[in-house]
Structures are given as C-alpha cells and as structure tokens.
C-alpha cells in the first residue's frame, strides 16, 4: 500500500456505497473502500465490470450518496456536499460523447458555460464575443480535430471525437483540483482515441493536474500516469506508484487480474 507523509488532496475513508437500500435488490458496491489521492497524482483505475469503478467516480462527484464513511477534501468534510457544489473543485469527462456537451448550443457557448464551472450564475451579460479569441487559441491546442474552425457550430453536429475533445477542454479550461476521466476515449475509433489520450496525457502532466482515469486498456493503464489502482469487489485490491508502477509489466498486471478471479 502507498505510504505518503504529505496530507492528501482527497481522502476516502471507509466508504460504503449501497444502491437500492432497504429493498430486496440492495447491493453494496463500494465495500469499506479507503483511498488517499495526493496533489499531482495521475491515477489509472482498472477493474473488471462491476468492481465499482464508476461507483467510485459517482461517489467522489456526489452523484451517489455514501451509506457510510467520510470524504475529505484536504481537511474539509465534503461527504454530504451536493454535486453542484463539488464542481467548484472537481471536473469530470464522461464516456458517452453525448453526456458532456449541450447539443443545441455552440462549441463556444459550451466553453463559456464551463468557464464558470462551480461559480454562481448571475445576471451579468455573458460576453461571448470577448472570449472568442481565447476559445480559438484554446481549441487550437487540440490540434488535428478541427474544433477551432467550428466554434460557432452546435455540438450536435460534431463528431464523437470532437465532442470528447471539447468535453476535455471544458473540464480543464478552469483548472480543477481533481479531474475524473471516465473512460473518456472508449467510445472513439482507435486513431481518435489515441490522439485524445496523447493530448490528455500532455495536458495532465504539463499542468500537473490531479487526475483519476478509468480505463479498460492495460497498455494505457501502464503507459500513462504515476499511479495505478485495481478495484475488486468494491475495494482497492492493488495500488502501485512511481518506480514500482514504472517497472510493472503487462504480464504482472494480468497476474493481478488472475489473482482476483
């Protein structure tokens, strides 16, 4: 297990998350899970289907209330903080390209909305025109997908790859303390997926963003990030970082999964 002396950015202590509580369909998904996330961690999250990866994200983001346990952001208890309030420090990119963007609004309008993430919305005029050069510059950093040429296009007319690139930009344009990437390249074709993954890695490492990334690709899990965790039956089964992670081979990683089965 990881031992670090610095205080964690986010700590999950003894988290239990149950769905359909009080009914015959009650299922405990996260089962006394403990996880400390430190500043600058880029964690790849692995686990079989049903291991609790998405539930972990939904618990961190506040979509699912915890049944027991405590979530702390530094020293602040945020266990019962609403989804909306958590967005002040947290951003998320979903797997489904349709989930992260507003279809009838333009690329620029989506970026403008996300630039106020976690802030109170007031009766101040939105000032879209003044922001256009900035948006042009920002979208140009995601080169190769033509997003910067389509600032005035409704996002429903974008390709899946463009939508995911936009979702990623929206999540990172205002630096989040914690970024959750929920298999954000899984719905894309291999080429687009690799391109977005490379851009993601560049952005996260350059800006030292603290990030959790769910993936099903063992290669990606090994290649990216400084830390790797494997979930099983609602608990962290393996947690390796830095040199240990760097030295980890695909065979060893497959061995983790075999030990689970």
């Amino acid at each position, binding site marked *: 297990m990881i031992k670090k002396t610095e205080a964690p950015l986010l700590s999950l202590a003894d988290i239990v998350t149950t769905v359909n509580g009080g009914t015959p369909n009650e299922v405990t998904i996260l089962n006394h899970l403990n996880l400390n996330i430190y500043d600058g961690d880029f964690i790849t999250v692995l686990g079989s289907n049903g291991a609790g990866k998405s539930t972990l994200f939904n618990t961190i983001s506040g979509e699912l209330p915890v049944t027991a346990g405590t979530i702390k952001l530094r020293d602040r208890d945020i266990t019962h903080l609403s989804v909306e309030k958590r967005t002040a420090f947290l951003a998320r990119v*979903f797997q489904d390209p349709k989930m992260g963007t507003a279809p009838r609004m333009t690329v620029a309008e989506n970026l403008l909305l996300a630039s*106020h993430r976690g802030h109170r*919305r007031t009766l101040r005029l939105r000032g879209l025109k003044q922001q256009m050069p900035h948006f042009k510059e920002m979208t140009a950093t995601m080169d190769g997908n033509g997003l910067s040429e389509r600032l005035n296009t409704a996002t429903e007319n974008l390709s899946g790859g463009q939508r995911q690139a936009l979702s990623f930009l929206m999540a990172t344009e205002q630096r989040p303390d914690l970024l959750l990437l929920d298999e954000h390249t899984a719905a894309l074709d291999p080429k687009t997926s690799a391109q977005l993954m490379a851009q993601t890695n560049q952005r996260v490492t350059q800006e030292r963003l603290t990030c959790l990334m769910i993936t099903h690709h063992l290669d990606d899990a090994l290649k990216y990030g400084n830390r790797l965790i494997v979930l099983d039956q609602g608990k962290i089964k393996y947690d390796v970082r830095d040199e240990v992670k760097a030295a980890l081979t695909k065979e060893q990683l497959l061995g983790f999964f075999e030990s689970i089965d």
Partner: protein
Amino acid sequence: MSMIVSSIGQGLLWATLGVALFLTFRILDFPDMTVEGTFPLGAATAVMAISHGMNPLAASLLAFAAGALTGLVTGLLYTKGKVPILLAGILVMTACLSINLRIMGGSSNVSLLGKQTLFASNFLTQLPKYFDSVFVGLVVISVITILLIVFLQTDLGQAFIVTGDNREMARSIGINTDNMTIMGLMVSNGIIGLGGALIAQNNGYADVSMGIGIIVIALASIIIGEVVFGELTLNQRLVAVTLGSILYQFVRLLVLQLGFNTNDMNLLSALILAICLMLPQFSKALNLNHVLKKGLASYDQEN
C-alpha cells in the same frame, strides 16, 4: 379591415402566452399544464383587484405574482416532490379551479363593467376601434420579448438554457438544475398570469373556464412560428412566436368567416396544432413520393 386589426390586437395579447410557454416547452423541454390554471388565476386576480379599486397596472403585476406562485408550486412538486412534470402541472391546474372560484367570491364570472382598466386611458380610448389592444399588446409583448432576449444572454440565462439542453452536463459544471427549472416555471407562469390579466381587461370580464384549451393556443403560436419561419436563432424564434400568434388569430378569423361556430374553435385549434406537429412526418412522406417517382435506385444512391 377592423376584423384584421382586431385579430392583430388579439394575436399580440395572446402572444404573451406563447412566449411564456416557449420558456418551458422549448427551452426546458417539457409541457407545463399549469398554464390552464394560471391563465384564469391571473384574470381573476386582476379583475378582483381592480374591482376593489386597485390601479390596473398594479393589478396586472399582482396577476404576474400570482402566476409565478403557481409556477413555484409546480416546480417544487416536480423537483423536490419528484412528481412527474405532466402530473405536477395537472395537479396545480386542478387546484387553481377551486382557488379561482375563491378569488372571484364564488361566482364563475366577474365583470369589469364601469371599472378602470389598462385599456381605458384617454389616449387609448381616442384611438380607432381595436387599436387599443394592438397598442397595449405591442408594448407588453415588446417589453417581455426584449427582457427575455437580454436575460437569455446573461450567465444565468445561459445556465437556464443548458438546463433544458443537457441536464447532466449542466449539473456537472455546477448549475443547480432544480433551481433553474423552478425559475423557468415561475417566470413562465408569471407571464401567463399577466396575459390572463390583460385579456380579462380587454374582454371586460374574468371567467373561471377561460383557461380551457389555452395551452393549445399557446403551443400553436410557437409551432406556427417555427413552421412558417423555419431555421432561426433563439432570439428570432422568440419574435416568431408573436408572429405565429398573430397568424393563428388570422386562421381563427378565417375559420369563423367560413361560417364555423365559435364553439368549434377548440376542436379547430387542436386540429391546426396537430397538423403543424405532424408536418415533419408529412415531409418524410413526401420524400417517399420522391422515391416512388424516381425508383429505389435513386434512394440507394442518396443514402
């Protein structure tokens, strides 16, 4: 000629309902049935307030407040009570039937005969016949439309739009979608209440049954505007609602001129709306004709 002016005046006054319903039906993307209760509630509130000596403008604003209150109740039932929106609207609409009778002191119809109304100022009474409703309607709908256009360009307005467009995404960037929904329902029903106050003053009475079928009229304004004017920006669509409302009144005039009974109007309104709503299906059918004419080969090539 006077019939045409009258239709324009009625179209402008009724456009308040179309614009209000646009906020919920088109932006938040759900049908709000509350309006059938809010409309007579606004009418009853304004008429009773004026009967008790209140200034007509203040009475109209009071009707706005009463409408907003019903929107608040529907919004709370939907967001906090988790009652499906259609049912929440129907519940509040039904409750309004009793409330409206209470407000009107138990009688189903209260007249404004001999009372001061927004249409009774010296300036308006000097205008040719029916021009008073054109003037009042134009002023009111212009103010409402301009305020809404400006509002939708603010950060709060954008948060309101995105709530209807993608609720998940709105939440993920920190927008409280429940609050946005409640706000939309309050503003929408407030405007409907104001519309009720205006139309009651224009008619000279409030009637408990005056809300029946108005959701169809309001929707018809929106849909006719969209069908006639096609692809538009959001701001242009708001203006198109008013033009749609006037066109609807022309259609109504035409239908009455053809000798139909006013009692048939609800049936005809529903028919007009149903036809407009089915237009996309008709155009698909037209494509089918195209295939039949040119053969399936052309269809394969095009797809």
